């Protein structure tokens, strides 16, 4: 019995709550019907609402308390056990955290041994550090980082005891809450009880919770990056990050970590991408919305939009293996190349990534511009035609000026896409950080550096890893600013014609 009450496992408790809640459903339903003398027309709500009300009232508070307890208890136990370990017990080159993880593992190992019956509960409490516990546990699949010292054993025993006490009260309390809730909800269940309103209130709370997840995500993004960025600026001067001139991470320390070369690469590649995407996308949109017949429009528009649905990894591979070698054939390889010049040595370059990213952005620009051009009122065109303008004159002098704010918004959205794009530049742009005007050279971008600083074994205490968070935050602020500006422009423009 004692073992069942102090168990750390959550499943039995959840099963108990579920059983009580389900029982509550049927009991409450029956009780409500009984109070209405079996005629559901006398009830305030449909019978099932009484059931749902009971189900909700039993499960929600009990699960809530359980969840909070699960989060809080380990923290409390941990902090009080940490105080028990004297500084002298921490060996040279180790830390309290490492000792604590040993304490936890030892405690869990002992608990596992007790629960499988290898050792009785009393024997486990009476163990002394003189027994070779490390080897004994290793035989049972529990690996410890160091030999068990008396302090660690003592801490582990205290840890076990506190956890057991905590689990005991948790199990009692949660079960009690569920039971009391069940009794209360059954007591208030009668034919006049407004069960539906209560249930609908609960559902509405759930809906609000789901909707606020969006805010939570944004807060999570900002906070998670902000904290690490502050850590980074504690280790590395912010002046070097924002105003330094070179990017040379060095995992032995003393690195140059300046965002400027990365920002230059990012903006240069995005600029080339927009140089490709904006004219093509814009002219495609103009043709589709002003000239094309319904048949051409119905085939060409979805076909162009396929380009937007292709995963970016495909474009990345296309840049690395097709466009890059093609450009090298044209601009590189000396006399063997098409132009007979030797300007380009490797397949990765600003031009490679920019061209391919431009292709990716074509449908983005064209769809958005298409919508905006279509939103220009027909009366403007008719007026222009009435004055004798040709169609192209109408488009150039009436439609485009009227749609210009929206088109600018679309281009800004495309630019924010280009700045945040990762896979194309990881595969196509190269890894050398430099500020140069030559589009045939390899350069690197913010997103590429985030990937390379955070993949592999990273040490979250070194500025070389933490810089990725500062880069991420900069990227987030940059794209957010562009998006907000673009949405503001588009929205303002839309209102103009409504």
């Amino acid at each position: 019995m004692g073992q069942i009450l102090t168990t750390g496992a959550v499943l039995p408790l959840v099963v108990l709550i579920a059983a009580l809640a389900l029982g509550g459903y049927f009991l409450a339903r029956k009780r409500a019907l009984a109070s209405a003398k079996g005629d559901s027309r006398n009830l305030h709500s449909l019978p099932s609402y009484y059931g749902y009300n009971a189900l909700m009232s039993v499960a929600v508070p009990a699960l809530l308390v359980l969840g909070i307890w699960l989060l809080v208890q380990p923290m409390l136990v941990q902090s009080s056990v940490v105080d028990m370990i004297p500084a002298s017990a921490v060996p040279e080159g180790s830390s309290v955290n490492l000792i604590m993880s040993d304490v936890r593992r030892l405690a869990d190992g002992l608990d596992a041994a007790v629960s499988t019956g290898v050792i009785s509960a009393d024997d486990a409490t009476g163990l002394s550090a003189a027994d070779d516990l490390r080897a004994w546990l290793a035989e049972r699949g529990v690996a410890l980082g160091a030999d068990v010292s008396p302090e660690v054993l003592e801490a582990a025993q205290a840890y076990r005891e506190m956890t057991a006490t905590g689990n005991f009260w948790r199990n009692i309390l949660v079960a009690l809450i569920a039971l009391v809730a069940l009794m209360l909800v059954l007591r208030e269940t009668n034919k006049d009880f407004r069960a539906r309103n209560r249930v609908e209130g609960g559902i509405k709370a759930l809906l609000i919770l789901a909707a606020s997840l969006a805010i939570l995500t944004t807060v999570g993004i900002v906070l998670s990056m902000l904290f690490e960025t502050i850590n980074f600026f504690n280790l590395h001067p912010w002046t070097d990050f924002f105003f330094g001139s070179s990017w040379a991470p060095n995992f032995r320390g003393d690195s140059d970590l300046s965002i400027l070369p990365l920002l230059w690469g990012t903006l240069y590649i995005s600029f080339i991408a927009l140089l490709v995407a904006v004219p093509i996308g814009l002219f495609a949109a103009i043709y589709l919305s002003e000239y094309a017949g319904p048949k051409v429009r119905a085939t060409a528009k979805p076909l162009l939009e396929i380009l937007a649905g292709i995963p970016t990894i495909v474009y990345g591979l296309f840049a690395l293996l097709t466009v890059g070698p093609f450009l090298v054939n044209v601009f590189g390889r000396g006399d063997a190349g098409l132009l007979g010049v030797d300007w380009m040595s490797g397949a990765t370059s600003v031009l490679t990534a920019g061209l391919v990213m431009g292709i990716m952005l074509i449908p983005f620009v064209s769809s958005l511009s298409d919508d905006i051009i279509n939103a220009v009122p027909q009366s403007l065109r008719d007026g222009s035609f009435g004055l004798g303008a040709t169609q192209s004159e109408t488009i150039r002098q009436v439609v485009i000026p009227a749609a210009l704010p929206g088109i600018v918004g679309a281009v800004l959205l495309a630019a924010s896409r280009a700045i945040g794009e990762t896979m194309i530049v990881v595969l196509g742009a190269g890894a050398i950080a430099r500020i140069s005007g030559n589009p045939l050279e390899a350069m690197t971008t913010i997103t590429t550096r985030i990937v390379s600083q955070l993949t592999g074994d990273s040490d979250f205490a070194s500025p070389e890893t933490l810089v990725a968070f500062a880069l991420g935050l900069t990227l987030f602020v940059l794209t957010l600013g562009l998006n907000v500006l673009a949405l503001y422009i588009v929205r303002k423009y839309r209102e103009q014609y409504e």
Partner: protein
Amino acid sequence: MSDIPNPAAPFADPRGASLLKQDGRTKRRNAAEGRFKLYGIVAITIGLLMLLTLLFTIISRGTGAFQQTYVTLSVPLLEDKLDKNGNRNLEDIKKVSTFGYSPLLNAAFENKIETAGIDSDLKAKAMAGILSKDAAAQLRDHVLANPELIGSDAEFEFLTNSRVDGYLKGRVSRDSIANDKNISAEQLDLVDALIADGSIEKRFNLDFITGADASDARPEAAGMGVAMIGSFAMMLVVLVLALPIGVAASIYLEEFAPKNWITDIIEVNISNLAAVPSIVFGILGLAVFINYMHLPNSAPLVGGLVLTLMTLPTIIISTRASLKSVPPSIRDAALGVGASKMQSVFHHVLPLAAPGILTGTIIGLAQALGETAPLLLIGMVGFIASNPPESIAEGLMSPNSAMPAQIYEWAKRADPAFYERAWGGIIILLVFLISMNAIAVLLRRRFERRW
């Protein structure tokens, strides 16, 4: 404005000019019209041409991955090599490592050229060099599974190594291997002879679709299957979390939310989240799920959670659109016969909006399936998951890769044989994306109502 014609400008006298004969100015204007239209056509053509080039490149470079070169050999499973005691004790047979199986392969080649009458100056070991490095392991696994075969000759189909495979596919030629340590011209002569003999052939390779990734030295054995399972596990998480949360959030925002500043903040937030670069979600996942919550690195569960957060805005936006398209008369009618607001939404509006919601969800899932960048940050790349997981829980928690991450991994390995597999992987990925989008379109066609 400047567009107003200047009356002093030298216009041709309109009187006396014929409508049928164009004057110079009209011709210029018409030519400009034609040019402008041409620009549009050229723009669309360039766009479509790019699409065609992309698809052509993918298909022409990727289809090779679905075929692989096999060599059929009869291997003498010598008892004195594999089971010295002769008692068929499985423990004893297991003691023979893959290294101990190589002599059998050499012997098999010697038999082969003898029976086929092929002339070759190559040593048996060099002949066995045309096989994949996987061959000995394959042989060992088969013997351990069927120990009764020891002592007899058994027919086997082995993968050849990637150079021989490339030779059959035209990727490798006698000129290109001049500096290649892995294959020699004599070995290619042997391959030619074996092709003539019919023992080497290229055929469909199911292992590429179902198999696991292989190490750098064995591109011929690498497959997409385990990464595919990783992707499915992530999609499961996304579906289970993003659909209910997305629908609940949209219902609140579209049907219940009062018009106030909190609602405004939520709405602006959602439209901004939709445009946040995907890599930022990767950073979030790394910081929150892995560093803070200590969920296992590289687990599809974490990938699924990150992709859920990324897909939510897409699902919310499309769900709201389809809720909005249900006419208010439906709600009014429900309210009129005494339903509560909640009942009118859940019993009438939601079922009517369901096809649109489903379509939006499928498109959101397709987007998540092709996403790579956030997966790189949470470590779903750079290792080899050799076995498919055994249960759903293990599939969610044990390290795995995902299809796009696997493609990235192959693209990084800088070996033409892996490039071919990367393109082949893209074909598989695109097949999934196209079928998902096709299902979405079909659903929309079949169930969409116009009010």
